[in-house]
């Protein structure tokens, strides 16, 4: 299925998928969803096989040298692409926001490929909000810190969700508050991290949603792990997985 607006503009965009190491290893379903969604919208998706990790964990935990090494590798792998799409707000913001800082702090030069978070790519580059998705469920959306305050994606993800047929979007109270994941923060400061997550989970439960959606599986792994431990019955789903669903998947 091709999206009408998109066809009118007659574009065929070549995009490189940066799957991210977490999705690659733990959430391949999200990657498959991105691929099918982008193809449906007329994109040609490539997967540069040499990719590994953007270096976020190393840099944010204080391992600058390893981080620089991974950032260099990332630059080499993705330098040739006009657009790189990553289904992770924090990895996209790592490249776009943090590579320049990392370069400054470490006194090195780094290539900063043009990386988009999925919602940015859809709304800003492809200029679509209705991606032809169908998902008849009550959903609430957690915007995640790095998408919100790093990439400043604003309401792009919710604009996309609002156009999904059958989907009832319920606002999440205190949505802009951090869920407490923070990478290694979750294990270095487990008490605070868990307390933050407990509040997030309470807010999710208050919405009565069946599904908690976000554009970052790291945060979802954290919140979802707590939702599951507490046997709440609320599922977590990446934005791509909802947007990829169509009536054919019924």
């Amino acid at each position, binding site marked *: 299925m091709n999206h009408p607006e998109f066809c009118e503009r007659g574009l065929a965009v070549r995009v490189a998928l940066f799957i991210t190491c977490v999705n690659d290893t733990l*959430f391949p379903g999200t990657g498959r969803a991105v691929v099918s969604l982008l193809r449906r919208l007329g994109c040609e998706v490539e997967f540069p096989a040499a990719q590994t*990790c953007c270096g976020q964990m190393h840099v944010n935990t204080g391992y600058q040298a390893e981080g620089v090494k991974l950032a260099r590798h990332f630059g080499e792998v993705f330098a040739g692409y006009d657009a790189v799409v990553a289904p992770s707000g924090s990895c996209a913001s790592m490249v776009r926001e943090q590579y320049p800082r990392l370069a400054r702090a470490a006194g090195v030069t780094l290539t900063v490929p043009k990386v988009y978070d999925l919602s940015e790519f859809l709304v800003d580059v492809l200029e679509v909000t209705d991606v032809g998705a169908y998902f008849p469920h009550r959903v609430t959306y957690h915007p995640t810190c790095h998408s919100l305050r790093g990439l400043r994606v604003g309401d792009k993800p919710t604009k996309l969700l609002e156009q999904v047929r059958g989907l009832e979007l319920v606002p999440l109270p205190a949505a802009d508050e951090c869920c407490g994941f923070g990478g290694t923060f979750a294990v270095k400061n487990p008490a605070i991290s868990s307390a933050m997550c407990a509040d997030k989970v309470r807010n999710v439960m208050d919405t009565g949603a069946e599904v908690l959606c976000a554009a970052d599986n790291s945060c979802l792994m954290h919140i979802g792990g707590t939702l599951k431990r507490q046997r709440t019955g609320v599922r977590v789903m990446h934005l791509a997985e909802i947007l990829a669903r169509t009536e054919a998947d019924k």
Partner: protein
Amino acid sequence: MSRTFVGMPAFPRNATRAVQNSQLRYNLRKATHTIRGKRAAVVGELPDWAELRAAGKAIKDHTLRNLDTYLLQLEEAVTRAGGHVHWAADAAEANRIVTDLVRATGETSVVKVKSMATQEIGLNEHLAARGITAYETDLAELIVQLGDDLPSHILVPAIHRNRAEIREIFLSKMAEWGRPAPERLTDEPRALAEAARLHLRERFLSTKVAISGANFMIAETGTLVVLESEGNGRMCLTLPETLISVVGIEKLLPTWRDLEVFLQLLPRSSTGERMNPYTSMWTGAVDGQEFHLVLLDNGRTRVLADEVGRQALRCIRCSACLNVCPVYERAGGHAYGSVYPGPIGAILTPQLRGLGSELDRSLPYASSLCGACFDACPVAIDIPEVLVHLRAKARHARAERAGMRAAGWVFDRPERLARAQRLGSRFRRLVPRRLPGPLAAWTDTRDLPDIPATSFRDWWDKTDGGRR
């Protein structure tokens, strides 16, 4: 205040204890959420907030770049206006200077305006050991002093106390320090404020020496500026015969005009008011008063030398970053083991004190890097950037270092990553529900995700990206 932060354990341990204290969490949550809303409203009211913020940041950066010039200009202006300027390279020297100045007056008691700099150097304790009593006059500082407690917030040092606790402290402790609390004191904020008024009034009218800090110093004119709410600052700044102001060297602004920016940024960010009730400005010795300015380095020049870290010196101590911080809200100020708590403390304390202690090394990690502090900061200090920068400087635990190095090795080559993923998939059924060692911190409250049978890259390989 006889308690000190010295020798406290690392942040995670302090925070764990704090998070279990439900009264503390309730107090903090209520207070920080109240102020958050107020700040957002008055900041939203200004059409040019972004421009003010950009100007504030640049003025501070410009000042820091030329700090030597402006310090000399300030010294000259203050001296010309009849004030005396002293330079203190560290806490010990500042304490010595102040003690000598107080002794020279022959007095044995002083009134104090809330000041972060004097807390940083432990001035009250130093004076007490030399027979000089320092009376804190800011309501929250009074609560902390009477309660033999430690401050836990920059603006509201007693934020961890609710009204009932404050009433208890007043009833049991005021008599030791001066006029006792009224017998039938209620926990109404109005009644508590009135009790403080009565307790301190006589002291204001009779004490001959005051010690203050300052929010800003103007190099061009030699003017000092103190923003406050209660009027205790005005009492201390105007009534005593001798005024001693201890001020960090980074508090400078080049020109009088620069106040037009900071008098808008500070009150709105700090108490969430369009303007704080009182702002005092004075230049040199006025109204017959003797005036001493003690310029304090105490590690600031070391912070200045760090290209990334020096932006922390732009801080105007508004506390907006504390009030929006989810970690501060749950850990409380004491967990940071310093007079500077919250996000700004997490980047300032380890820079001022160095990364020598376990506590100070743990502070840069006391953040999920959510970025709320950066957004709120009126001088645009990129706190997450400095946190990450300091993490890179701190020594790491050996086991962690090994783990991170191994991860780095795996990520170095896609084949290694693919092999590791296949290994994980093969043994995926064997992953226990509760992990051992430091990773137990995850599984204590959270389930692990299921490891998939095939990684994304293997799926792409096998299916030609789903086309087969």
